[in-house]
């Protein structure tokens, strides 16, 4: 018998070593998230998955699951917090969805719709973030970076290449690539790298395929992100578990 905790009043089973987010997704319960990816160790920077446990608010992706925790996630207050965090991310970068080729496949945009972010909320910062179009096959549009570090983690942990890193501090934090020239063309990135696949927004883009699938027929055009995130979660194959 495995231990369980409560998530919004529902019983969630977990295995030792799992975090609240991991256990919840595995059990088929959605908690909004952005920097969390089921294949990587959670690091808890976007704070979208913040939940309330015993009067404390804490990121669920890094919170170790414990028996009998009483976790609240889908509350008006927490969703309002998530809405503000999404607004902050939109205000921090230069996100212009109508002209973005990631539109419809972008998690930030999808979460914005799903959490009903109807207004800008904050004064936009309009940072100056030049593109890197140096690579023949890959475009980097830093304007859309939300600093989730997924590409950094993927390149280091899966590809073994360390193509990406974060530099600067505070509101000056930004993505850089591993080359003396500072240009992507001088790195050893390849189209087949894991780092090419994990960007939740539209920073790392393969060239010449942007509109192969027309806008309107893309992933989050079909169904909201809350209904799809569970598809990505690691699940025990049905029938594989023997009691």
């Amino acid at each position: 018998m495995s231990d369980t905790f409560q998530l919004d009043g529902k019983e969630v089973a977990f295995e030792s070593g799992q975090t609240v987010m991991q256990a919840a997704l595995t059990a088929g319960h959605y908690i909004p998230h952005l920097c969390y990816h089921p294949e990587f160790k959670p690091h808890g920077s976007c704070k979208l998955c913040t939940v309330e446990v015993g009067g404390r608010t804490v990121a669920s992706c890094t919170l170790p699951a414990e028996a009998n925790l009483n976790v609240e996630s889908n509350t008006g207050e927490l969703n309002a917090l998530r809405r503000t965090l999404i607004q902050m991310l939109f205000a921090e970068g230069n996100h212009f969805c109508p002209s973005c080729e990631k539109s419809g496949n972008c998690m930030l945009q999808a979460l914005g719709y799903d959490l009903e972010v109807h207004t800008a909320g904050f004064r936009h910062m309009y940072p100056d973030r030049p593109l890197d179009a140096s690579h023949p096959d890959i475009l980097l549009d830093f304007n859309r970076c939300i600093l989730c570090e997924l590409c950094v983690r993927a390149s280091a942990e899966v590809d073994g290449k360390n193509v990406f890193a974060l530099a600067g501090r505070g509101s000056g934090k930004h993505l850089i690539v591993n080359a003396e020239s500072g240009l992507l063309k001088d790195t050893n990135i390849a189209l087949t790298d894991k780092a090419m696949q994990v960007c939740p927004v539209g920073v790392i883009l393969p060239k010449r395929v942007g509109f192969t699938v027309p806008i309107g027929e893309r992933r989050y055009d079909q169904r909201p992100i809350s209904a799809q995130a569970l598809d990505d979660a690691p699940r025990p194959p049905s029938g594989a578990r023997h009691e």
Partner: protein
Amino acid sequence: MLPDANLIYGDSPKCELDACLQHIFATYGNNKTNLLQILNEVQACAGHISTDAAAYIAARLDIPLARVKSVASFYSFLHLQPQGEYRVLFSDNITDRMLGSQDLMQRMCQQLWLQPGKVSEDGLLSINTTSCTGMCDQGPALLVNGKVITRLTLQRVQEIGQLIRNRTPLAAWPAEFFHVDDNVYRAGLVLGNTLTYGEVLRNSLQPGGVPIIDSIKQSGLRGRGGAGYPTGLKWEACRNAPGAEHYVVCNADEGEPGTFKDRVLLTRQADLVFEGMTLCALAVGARQGFLYLRGEYQYLFESLRAVLQCRRNANLLGRDILGQIGFDFDIEIHLGAGAYICGEESALIESLEGKRGVPRNRPPFPVTEGYLQQPTAVDNVETFCQAALALQMGAEKYRAIGTAKSSGSKLISVSGDCPRPGIYEYPFGVSVGEVLRDCGAVNTRAVQISGPSGVCIGESEFGRKLGFEDLPTAGAFMVFDDSRDMFEVARNFVHFFAHESCGFCTPCRVGTSMLKQTMDKIAAGHGTRYDLNEIEHLDQVLQSSSHCGLGRTACNPVLHTLKHFRPAYENKLKSLDFEPAFDLDGALARARQMTGRDDAGAHLKGDE
């Protein structure tokens, strides 16, 4: 440190940098955990870290170049671009401002034909601001190429300008510029101690003595960095945690604006600090210790190293300490490089490992997984001093000092509007009013206790007592008299937090910038009630979702001053409910600058 490294500059021949790099690697080896130390040395030697130097470091340490840049760009005192032969940084704490630092900086910029934040076209110098340098009792202060200059006056600033113009090497500048006073006005348990060094350690090694951890637990000693965690419990948890190695770390990254007690302790009581660390090592079973010294206190580095050497010579450090077979312990000093966040213990450990100072996810806590994932006891400078004294006096006697839940004494760093700013040591439980009387403060409007992340209290609360029961403090005590605009005080602190946010989590990275924008909007006369509501909204977000204490406390200065001094805000508000953040007239500032115009016609009509 390299001898007089400041004499070699960025445009020096490449071979000088090469020689410098050779020397650095001879000292530090190819150890990745020394990355920040190596970068500090290159910065001191060459004035910036060139791509060539960064690539060389990356190759030697076998790490990606991007990681070297990633780490270097995290710290304020490291530069990847040339910053001038002379890099002048004015300390920008509110206490410096109250002593006229902004005007002095402007005068220096005028004298040298320079804009703040820019490098002069001849590459001679740059002038900018930096967070509190810990010289609040003798400000305004500045750093030039990392060296601190205190008690600035217009005359001194002009002399500095002249020395820079003449390209006079720093070593030939008048010595009194660099003089730092201790300003101890009230000594107690720690500052008045008469221990012979090694005494406590010797006693603790005697057979039949009270075990260290039990004694510390019984003494009721709590951490002096502000949070007040029971020291005995921390040491016990560290000792009991399994690990191939255990480590002791002294947090001397005294970055909280208005705090400078560790500066004085490290100047006067370095032996006591190291004795406390050695006792901790004995208790938890550590063989290696680190003192993480904030970059602003670089001038203490050599004297601290000399104290360590004396202790080695006296067999108080090193192998088989005081003849106890197997008791090996030594201490290394690591220098920070201008990052307030490294005062947070897990960020400090990251920095010690040569990484960006980003706070870790907790749990696990450092006592189980700290430096290199091994059990690590991290304590404040003052805590180690108190620990050594508590062991020497015995738990019972120590407990008798202070109050029931706050035993022992506390060093208070007094600055701001008072005739005698400096260090005051009291038993815990002293009232705010008593400290104000002792430092001679009159017409006091407010006191900021424990720095921007602490609390701001008004006159009605001056009867409150310093201690964990009432007003916990890391030591900062900034006094503001009735001539001060408390809104401007809060705005200064908000700028500080925005500058020091590490940028890891969304709420703090973006929220502190938003807060800064809102405060600036109010200061510019465009604020409305809507903005005050916005501040409260941001506060909720920062408090409920930030990754660490920096974000969670970033709104404190605003909330506390709003509570006590609301008129200071309301006087600045327009009566409107809403005014857009976009300042139409402000947007023309660049055009005005480019055309050299500032007449009425160059401004939008109707803008007050």
